[in-house]
């Protein structure tokens, strides 16, 4: 705009049409070449090596047995996480309780279930009837029940610590303000403290969910046909080991991707009020 540059010398006015060139980094360019080359090599192998047997992968990706495995894995993950969260919140509150009895009980639970391998816990629940022969236990503990029980109780121990960390992170003034208004203890926890703690609780819990998704594959030791076990059953018959492991991996990746999207929205929900921009939208 000529009117604005009227007072400037010609040298300064020339500055208006100077071109900015970003600093070039030769290392970055070289790195790019290397990465692209490696990626091309990988794609080349994936496409040209017939032993990947992509046709087999495609055929089994939607096979009924695999699909049922996916559903079972999803079901186990969802139920174990829901149970784990509920039990974890209860344990966390118990650990923070002023009652020595409650806090010691919760401590002992967490100590035991975090301190022993999940695999042992699963096999233990499966074999519970060995401890109580002739009672109804054998009929009650099916492989599925043992799997769900083992995963849930183990997960609760980890989630209890995650929830406890979140609850401790909420300013004491929040509880005091709610107490001063005459709000009861349970209400303060569920309506005031926990919603604020969720911001801290959600990311590690999402992590746990992803870990749980893959930990469910441990239940194959109990003969429960989850995603991995379903794939194993097929390749033990057809010897197409690699293609079927690819099928299982692809499914795990699909599910974790969907979970990641879900996490984004859950975090956004619990972040309301702490992100100034989000607050303005609401106003």
């Amino acid at each position, binding site marked *: 705009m000529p009117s604005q540059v009227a007072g400037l010398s010609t040298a300064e006015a020339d500055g208006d049409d100077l071109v900015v060139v970003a600093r070039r980094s030769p290392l970055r360019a070289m790195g790019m070449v290397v990465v692209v080359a490696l990626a091309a090599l990988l794609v080349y192998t994936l496409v040209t090596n017939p032993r990947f047997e992509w046709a087999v992968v495609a055929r089994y990706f939607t096979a009924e047995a695999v699909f049922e495995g996916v559903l079972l894995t999803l079901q186990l993950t969802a139920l174990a996480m829901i149970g784990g969260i509920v039990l974890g919140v209860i344990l966390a509150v118990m650990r923070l309780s002023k009652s020595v009895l409650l806090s010691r009980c919760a401590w002992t639970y967490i100590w035991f279930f975090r301190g022993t391998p999940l695999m042992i816990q699963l096999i233990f629940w499966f074999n519970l009837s060995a401890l109580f022969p002739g009672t109804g236990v054998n009929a009650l503990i099916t492989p599925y029940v043992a799997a769900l029980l083992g995963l849930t109780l183990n997960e609760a121990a980890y989630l209890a610590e995650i929830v406890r960390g979140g609850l401790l992170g909420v*300013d004491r003034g929040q509880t005091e*303000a709610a107490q001063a208004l005459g*709000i*009861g203890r349970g209400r303060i926890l569920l309506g005031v403290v926990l919603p*604020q703690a969720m911001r801290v609780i959600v990311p590690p819990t999402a992590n746990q969910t992803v870990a749980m998704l893959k930990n469910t594959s441990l239940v194959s030791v109990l003969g429960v046909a989850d995603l991995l076990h379903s794939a194993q059953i097929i390749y033990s018959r057809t010897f197409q080991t690699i293609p079927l492991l690819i099928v299982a991996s692809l499914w795990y990746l699909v599910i974790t991707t969907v979970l990641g999207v879900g996490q984004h929205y859950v975090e956004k929900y619990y972040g309301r*009020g702490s992100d*100034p921009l989000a607050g*303005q939208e*609401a*106003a």
Partner: protein
Amino acid sequence: MNAEPMVRASGVRKSFGRTEVLKGVDLDVARGEVCCLLGPSGSGKSTLLRCVNHLEKVDAGRIWVDGELVGYRQSGRTLHELSEREIGRQRADIGMVFQRFNLFPHMTAVENVMYAQCTVRREPRAKARERAEELLARVGLAEKAGSYPATLSGGQQQRVAIARALAMQPKLMLFDEPTSALDPELVGEVLDTMRALAADGMTMIVVTHEIGFAREVADSVLFLDGGVIVERGAPKAVLVAPEHPRTRAFLEKVL
């Protein structure tokens, strides 16, 4: 007017670990009275305030609000601690405003003011919202009803906090250094709100460093030091012509 004081404290003692913070405090606050607690930090004034709604348990002595013993039931020579629910019922009638506002950050301004009405008083949401909006208008924040606390200035947050306390229709308001966390230019708007509240006849106990506010609004001023009340009286007497050397020394420092 009821002659019985709104707040009566007698022989209140409180220790944290080995430190005795209150060493036998007596206090009478009449209905409609504005009482300012002054004193150096660590003198026990905030602790005394927090004993009035049982946020701190007293070690000895008793406190009555509106004739009702706070936190305990007396039978003969023993005091039985009340249940959480009973203490909650007592607290619901005592409004409290904190130094650091303590608004619930995950709720909008109007939700903050509504929350206790809905949960404690079990008011229907529509009615609670109506009252909350009325109260926000009264503290001059009608247009901020839908804003989250993080988007409000300190002064605005503190005014929402006052509206939140008023929503419970308290008999008594406790203010714990309500302007100490504010930028200097925001102090005035909060003090104005408190001034209006005092003019409406609310009984108030205010822990403050705002000597000007105390002089102008308070009916009585108490000066605490070392866990005891050193001097008390009308603001003109205590603030203008203090008798005790410790009061004099403190006032020289803050004025």
